[in-house]
């Protein structure tokens, strides 16, 4: 029963966000502010994780393809598809669920505990629309951008392995990247990242918005936000793969 209630509350929360919106002039500065918080402030972590994962993927793929029958360019092809289809959108979003999700839940949760959300409501302002909508829009814009960056840096990580290591030549790697490239894979990655961004922002905001108690509950809300967002991402990943591929 609690499970169904929570789903109902979640959808009502989303409905309230788009109902009785504030005047449109209010949103652009808020969205830009959130884009900086969600996007720019996540650049370093995304860059580090993606380059290292890309490099490790290249090394491990090369290690598993030691055969005179398999051309070395296949390593590049496998790295490309892994990066585009899974590592850049899914892995990056799992990392962002931890970084952005906990941040959003903590921020909104502490606003709830300190009655700042009540203060907004008393003024006759729709607090869900004013606080959450800009975060959702900003996440849906910036997380796909971060995923594109992640894919690029992941492939660059593999290129560095080819350049500095002795498993293949950079030429082999680049040939592999070009071989049988499907543009649809890029669209697929972008669709996934938008869906994941929506899940991260909405689940984290929902958990924060319905925080009651004190500092302990804010911590619990952040933890739940991250775990639920990660589960949401993995389930959506499976569904999207089944539906779109």
């Amino acid at each position: 029963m609690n499970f169904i209630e929570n789903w109902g509350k979640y959808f009502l929360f989303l409905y309230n966000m788009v109902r009785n919106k504030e005047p449109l002039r209010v949103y652009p500065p808020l969205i830009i502010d959130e884009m900086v918080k969600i996007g720019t402030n996540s650049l370093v972590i995304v860059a580090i994780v993606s380059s290292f994962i890309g490099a490790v993927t290249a090394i491990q793929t090369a290690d598993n393809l030691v055969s005179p029958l398999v051309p070395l360019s296949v390593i590049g092809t496998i790295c490309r598809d892994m990066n585009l289809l899974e590592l850049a959108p899914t892995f990056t979003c799992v990392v962002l669920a931890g970084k952005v999700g906990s941040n959003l839940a903590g921020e909104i949760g502490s606003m709830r505990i300190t009655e700042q959300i009540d203060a907004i409501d008393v003024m006759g302002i729709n607090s869900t629309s004013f606080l959450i909508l800009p975060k959702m829009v900003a996440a849906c814009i910036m997380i796909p951008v971060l995923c594109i960056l992640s894919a690029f840096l992941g492939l660059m990580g593999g290129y560095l392995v080819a350049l500095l290591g002795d498993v293949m030549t950079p030429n082999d790697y680049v040939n592999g990247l070009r071989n049988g490239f499907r543009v649809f894979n890029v669209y697929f990655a972008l669709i996934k990242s938008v869906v994941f961004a929506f899940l991260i922002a909405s689940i984290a905001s929902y958990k924060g918005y319905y925080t009651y108690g004190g500092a302990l509950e804010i911590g619990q809300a952040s933890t739940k936000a991250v775990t639920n967002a990660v589960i949401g991402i993995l389930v959506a990943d499976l569904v999207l793969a089944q539906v779109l591929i």
Partner: protein
Amino acid sequence: MIEIVNIKKSFGDKQVLAGISGRFEDSHNSLIIGASGTGKSVLLKCIVGLITPDEGDVFFDGRSLYNSSAREVKKIRREMGMLFQGGALFDSKTVAENVRFPLDMLQNEMALSEKNDRVLHSLERVGLENAAQKMPSEISGGMKKRVGIARAIVMNPKYLFCDEPNSGLDPMTAIRIDELISEITDDYKMTTVVVTHDMNSVMGIGEYVMFLYNGLKEWEGDSQSILHAESKALREFVFASKIMEKLIHKE
């Protein structure tokens, strides 16, 4: 005038408000008092619409809060100002930005210079014109409450609500906050409702006092008659303070 009619509210099995009615007159300081856990803050949140009661309604000059269109409710809410227990200031904004927030959100056509004048005037009214550029983390608890009052009055509201304005303050600052609320009520001709359990506030500014006990209105009257009230629960509450005991013996 604010009229509350048969407000009932339960949380799970626990009934917090068991049918409370009353009337808060214009230009008066009305106080809701009672021991901790008697539902004072819940009643106040039902009055402003932050908690929806299970039964009952609240009328602001005859306009229902719970049986009106969303547009009408929004209009009523924009005539309210509220001071929260901790001030509820936005951490990321300066004092001036906090006070200007309702104007930025709700007064689209107002020029920035006029908004700034209104902010300055509100801050002067609470004696904080020099703290305009400070962050909430840089000011004391008493100052936060005064900023909260400044933010509540910047829109010239018809109704002012204060949730335990004195909690966590030293006696001197508490008296100053009470005086400020009383002065503002007179100056702006507002209908003010204060939730408190501080007897100094009751005796200082209480023109109408509603005493809650076990989720019901146990007693109502003015602050002078409270000392001679016959309700046992009210007498226990009032004379829990040694000062009040001395005061009545003196009389």
